[in-house]
């Protein structure tokens, strides 16, 4: 019933490669595999390890549990662990190796982490998005660690002639009586032995964990980050390289009519100008039409780009006006749409209602705006290509680059640097394709550097939306019917011919999975065509849905004379496990790629996190005039997060002096990084609430840099953020953490603002000033 479909595989880029070359023989790449690893099998019964299925098995290239791929041990005992997911700040490069190290009893201070290149056939899935890294890899990381521990014990058993079952492996030492050996001493001996199967492994009990679920380990790269030595996308150089800065069509599907590069070529350091031909939508991650200026340094390239005289043909989207379009979407939301979920008899509920109540909530486009603007280095020669860059999905980048260059993926290597933030933007590796095409065209290594203006104006943006919610109320003011029409251009428009309708992944993000205990429910989707490139933004469609539903609950509470928390709890109802089909969910309901059996919607967990957040902030306490508390709770990425925001208007500016986030993410492997993700979600959520709006006039983005696309800063961020993690044992499946903190923050702030001032905001961004 439930199935996963990777939308990124719907279409392939068709950008014209400047040079066609033939295929050559496969090149062998140096990988992170364990050239010197000693591994042997240990006999023994399988411990109780409550394995559960995840969507990880059904992702492209699935999961790998072979320790030889991920672990190597040097003679001096240094344990090198391969991090195969991209690090963009969520901590996956720390947490997955930390789990391996704990289960193998390696000393974290003697662990070195090595970033994998893009190679999914070898490492399994590397597409680092969807808050999947821990959810999909905690089990494989434990298995890999346990395998290595057993193999080291087995090697010692053979050497000392004692039963493996009597051998202790503890903190980088293998011990039996008076015998002891370091990991490095045993590595070579164990190397020839086979890898044990899962059923032969002994796993640590939760009480035996040294790092997992415990205090803090220093994050990977911390020393380099604090000394400037850490390597991000723009920090690698090759001899003879040029730097390219590109003038891209300001309008989606615009094309170049004419170029005058006279002034550009006068700038010292400018070497040449190359036109990149764009691909009409749907074009997946193909570059926009543009004109690249290649220079000896970045400054010359920027100046050269700015000096270009280009006449553009804006094409079919040259009249896109986001303000006018918003009015159209609001009108569309008033009309019936395509029905995605139908439960009970909605029309009867509304026709028999004693009262009805309806509101519409909107959101403008947003840019992810990671602090590191897009950048990638490519070195393309006749028979191979090598890239370096901050890629969220390096293997997808590798196969796409191979295709546009006319190469076999075996001829392409994609190296992953640290990502200076991602938030979904670096899932689109258009910037890597640009670098590869330009390097191929110029015959030298090329670094493509986007400016901040490029980042905002040639973005793959978050959608824009109008969400209309209507409820039917009986004579006792009980909600008997719920209608939610979600109108927003779809991400699918970059992958397939735009139908104007959302697809199941978007509708699964807070629309059809509305979890309230209401007998009659209809979820509809009105048509909205895309006029700019729509793609992923941290938490994706959950942001407008949590915004709409979270604000609506508070408005309904005010309408019915209830307090917000009572209204939330009335709607959530008694604790239940949602049966999606019985509640009219679509057959292709998308549960973040997980089965509803393994990761069901449990409304008791939803109510619990709301309770925790409300209690933490002292919900119901008396506050001075001009202050208020807002609540919101939302399930996304199979996690449950509630936000309680204390809002205070100071000199006409919205401030948040206190906020609490309660999260139920199943078993938490690295609470320190969960806390940091929640602290960050509070800040990004407040930025979404107050500032994040990209607007379009004549088809082009109107904002250009941080002066008009503002961010919450240290002079006004949510203060005193309390993060409350619901304690769960390993048997409660680990869920997602990178994204689900963001959605409830904006509605909690808006609801707090309402209680502080009586002003109700229904449009994001709401602005900082009242």
């Amino acid at each position, binding site marked *: 019933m439930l199935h996963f479909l990777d939308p990124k595989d719907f279409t392939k880029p068709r950008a014209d490669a400047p040079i066609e070359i033939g295929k050559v023989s496969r090149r062998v790449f140096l990988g992170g595999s364990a050239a010197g690893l000693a591994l042997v099998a240990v006999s023994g019964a399988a411990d109780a390890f409550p394995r559960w299925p995840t969507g990880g098995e059904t992702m492209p290239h699935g999961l790998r549990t072979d320790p030889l791929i991920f672990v190597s041990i040097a003679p001096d005992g240094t344990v090198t662990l391969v991090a195969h997911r991209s*690090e*963009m*700040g*969520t901590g996956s490069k720390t947490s997955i190796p930390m789990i391996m190290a704990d289960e193998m009893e390696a000393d974290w201070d003697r662990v070195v982490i090595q970033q994998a290149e893009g190679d999914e056939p070898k490492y399994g899935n590397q597409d680092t998005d969807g808050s999947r890294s821990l959810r999909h890899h905690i089990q494989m990381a434990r298995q890999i660690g346990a395998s290595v521990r057993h193999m080291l014990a087995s090697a010692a058993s053979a050497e000392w002639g004692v039963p493996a079952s009597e051998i202790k492996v503890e903190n980088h030492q293998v011990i039996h009586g008076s015998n002891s050996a370091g990991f490095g001493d045993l590595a070579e001996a164990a190397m020839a032995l086979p890898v044990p199967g899962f059923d032969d492994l002994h796993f640590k009990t939760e009480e035996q964990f040294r790092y997992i679920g415990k205090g*803090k380990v*220093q*994050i990977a*790269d*911390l*020393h380099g*980050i*604090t*000394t*400037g030595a*850490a*390597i*991000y996308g*723009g*920090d690698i*150089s090759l001899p003879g390289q040029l*730097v390219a800065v590109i003038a891209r069509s300001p309008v989606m599907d615009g094309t170049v009519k004419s170029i005058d590069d006279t002034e550009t070529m006068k700038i*010292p*350091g400018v070497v040449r100008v190359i036109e990149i031909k764009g691909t009409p939508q749907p074009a997946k991650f193909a570059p926009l039409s543009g004109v690249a200026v290649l220079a000896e*340094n*970045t*400054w010359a390239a920027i100046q050269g780009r700015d000096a270009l005289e280009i006449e553009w043909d804006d094409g079919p989207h040259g009249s896109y006006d986001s303000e006018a379009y918003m009015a159209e979407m609001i009108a569309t939301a008033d009309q019936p749409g395509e029905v995605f979920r139908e439960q009970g008899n909605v029309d009867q509920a509304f026709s028999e209602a004693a009262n009805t109540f309806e509101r519409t909530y909107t959101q403008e486009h947003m840019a992810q*705006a*990671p*602090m*590191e*603007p897009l950048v990638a280095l490519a070195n393309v020669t006749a028979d191979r290509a090598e890239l370096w860059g901050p890629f969220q999905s390096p293997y997808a980048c590798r196969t796409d680059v191979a295709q546009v260059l006319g190469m076999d993926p075996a001829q392409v290597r994609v190296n992953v640097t*640290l*990502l*200076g*933030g*991602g*938030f979904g933007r670096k899932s689109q590796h258009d910037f890597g394709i640009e670098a590869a095409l330009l390097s191929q065209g110029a015959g030298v290594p090329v670094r493509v*550097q986007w*400016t*901040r203006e490029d980042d905002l104006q040639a973005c793959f943006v978050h959608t824009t939306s109008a969400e209309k919610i209507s409820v039917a109320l009986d004579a006792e003011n009980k909600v008997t019917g719920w209608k939610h029409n979600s109108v927003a251009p779809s991400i699918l428009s970059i992958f397939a011919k735009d139908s104007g309708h959302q697809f199941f992944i978007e509708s699964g993000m807070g629309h059809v999975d509305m979890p309230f205990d209401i007998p009659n429910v209809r979820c509809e989707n009105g048509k909205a065509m895309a006029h700019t490139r729509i793609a992923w933004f941290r938490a994706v469609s959950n942001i407008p849905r949590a915004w709409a539903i979270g604000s609506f609950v508070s408005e309904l509470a005010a309408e019915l004379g209830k307090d917000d928390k009572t209204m939330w709890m009335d709607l959530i109802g008694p604790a239940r496990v949602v049966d999606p089909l019985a509640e009219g969910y679509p057959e292709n309901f998308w549960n973040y790629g997980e089965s509803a059996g393994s990761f069901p919607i449990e409304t008791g967990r939803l109510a619990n996190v709301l309770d925790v957040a409300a209690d933490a902030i002292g919900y119901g306490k008396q506050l001075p005039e001009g202050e208020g508390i807002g609540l919101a709770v939302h399930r996304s990425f199979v996690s449950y997060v509630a936000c309680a925001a204390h809002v205070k208007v100071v000199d006409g500016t919205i401030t948040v002096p206190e906020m609490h986030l309660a999260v139920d993410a199943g078993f938490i492997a690295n609470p*320190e990084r969960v806390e*940091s*993700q929640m*602290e*960050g*979600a*509070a*800040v*990004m959520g407040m930025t979404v609430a107050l500032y994040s709006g990209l607007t379009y006039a004549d088809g082009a983005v109107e904002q250009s*840099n*941080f*002066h008009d696309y503002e*961010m*919450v*800063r*240290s*002079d006004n*961020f949510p*203060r005193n*953020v309390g993060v409350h993690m619901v304690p769960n044992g390993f048997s409660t499946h680990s869920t997602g953490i990178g994204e689900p903190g963001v959605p409830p923050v904006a509605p909690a702030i808006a609801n707090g603002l309402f209680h502080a001032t009586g002003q109700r905001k229904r449009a994001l961004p709401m602005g900082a000033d009242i």
Partner: protein
Amino acid sequence: MPTFSLNGAAQSVDAPDDMPLLWALRDLMGLTGTKYGCGAGLCGACTVHIDGKAERACMLTISQIDGKSVTTIEGLSPDGNHKVQQAWRELNVPQCGFCQAGQIMQAASLLEENPNPSDDEILDAMAGNICRCGCYERIVAAVRVASTGG
């Protein structure tokens, strides 16, 4: 040709007068710890010290630093253990880490001028440095730890 002190050593650079210090550092001098975030003095990712005070390297041309002393994140401390760097590690401040060199340089400059700032003084001094990941709570706490009042 502008001549200046770079992390304690004499340096001259052959670059057009109007090249921002940021790109001269990154492209011509191989010091990539100073990051590009906006190019307009709006985000603080490229913060360096000029004669000991925090400045945005994207807003200074190479000719403007002639005769001055430039310190980048690479030169903040000979062993990378400036008290601000240590405080950052103690609190595991970074998420993606990209803005952190600029944040650290800003904080070090603040504490040089004001060894025991109030919370409000920390918040004001750090307000020019954006962290999109939202590490502000830990940044403020780390500045407090590194201060004489910490």
